[in-house]
């Protein structure tokens, strides 16, 4: 039988339970993943009690409440606080999403767990290392590529052609989709993942782009595109309501059509 050894520091231990705020009547329990590589040791689940009457309405508000009132060492990324920058993606109650648009009302009853996006190395606490994810995004060359000289004013596009980009251009690169994909967990170094492939299709289908063949060539191997098995976790979790799996299927159509 195969013997598997878990990597060092991979077991999450029970951590500290922080005291309940005094006099609060509307308390909710949060269990948050904590890891600081500088301290060494294993990651841990710390327990926090939050006064929901004071914390605001979104999960990001809870995290800020904890950081400001209970534990200033808690680390997480955020910037826009309105679902535009993609920085605050994390796993909340077992599901990847962005913390700033995730309201309490959507969450199940009981203890809420919050951990970093799965399958990526952790920089600290809720901050994943997305170096590989960004490199994959760069690989698909997410910009207009043309041979014809640039027009004086702008590259024009018909309304119908512009319509093709809907459901694609809205991606905020939060990485919720790719890090929820079992195929990406397994082959994240070779499979580009739903987010990068959604962007690949966004440029493949752009009527102004002139590098379609080259772009398809860059995806033509057993891993980069074809490790998508239409598991659909990506579409389930995308906080912007996009469907990367459909974009991937469309790229596969383009691959077949160019051979026919």
């Amino acid at each position, binding site marked *: 039988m195969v013997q598997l050894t878990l990597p060092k520091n991979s077991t999450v231990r029970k951590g500290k339970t922080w005291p309940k705020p005094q006099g609060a009547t509307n308390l909710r329990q949060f269990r948050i993943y904590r890891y600081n590589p500088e301290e060494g040791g294993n990651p841990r689940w710390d327990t926090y009690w939050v006064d929901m009457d004071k914390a605001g309405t979104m999960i990001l508000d809870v995290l800020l409440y904890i950081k400001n009132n209970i534990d200033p060492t808690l680390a997480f990324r955020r910037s826009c606080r309105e679902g535009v920058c993609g920085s605050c993606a994390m796993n909340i109650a077992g599901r990847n999403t962005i913390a700033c648009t995730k309201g309490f009302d959507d969450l199940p009853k009981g203890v809420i767990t919050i951990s970093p996006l799965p399958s990526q190395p952790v920089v600290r606490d809720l901050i994943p290392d997305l170096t590989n994810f960004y490199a994959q995004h760069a690989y698909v060359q997410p910009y207009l590529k043309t041979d014809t000289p640039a027009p004086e004013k702008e590259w024009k596009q018909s309304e119908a052609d512009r319509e093709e980009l809907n459901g694609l251009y809205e991606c905020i690169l939060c990485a919720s989709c790719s890090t929820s994909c079992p195929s990406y967990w397994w082959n994240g170094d070779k499979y580009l993942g739903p987010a990068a492939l959604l962007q690949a299709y966004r440029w493949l289908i752009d009527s102004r782009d002139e590098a379609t063949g080259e772009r398809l060539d860059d995806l033509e191997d057993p891993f980069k595109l074809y490790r998508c098995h*239409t598991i*659909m976790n990506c*579409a389930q979790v995308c906080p912007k309501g996009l*469907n990367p*799996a*459909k974009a991937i*299927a*469309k790229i*596969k*159509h383009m691959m*077949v*059509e160019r*051979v*026919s």
Partner: protein
Amino acid sequence: MKPAIFLLVPIMCALPVVAEERCQYLEDQVDQANKAMASIFADGITDNSAPRETNRQIKELNQKIKQQTAIQLAIAEGCDTSSFLPNDMGSYITPALECATEQLKGNYKAASCEMSNWTRSEEE
């Protein structure tokens, strides 16, 4: 296995009727895939949810791959593929929609769903 192939090749060459039947069979495969794609499209008219829409994309993709395989085999058989019409589900949209409408009424065995009776609608 080699001697069997060695024998098969001249037999096939000596029997042009069989070769024609093979070519016809492969052309029919391409046409059936067009009908299947039209049917997949029509099924989606009333349900555009992400999983179903994606599933339809994959089903349609499989039909395209089937067409590609049939054409490659036809070329290998020496068939004239100029009459093959891949990627032509548009010609069967009308019967496909008729069938989907009947199925929405719960009439799953409607005569209009018998694909072998579907005829190609001519371009205007």
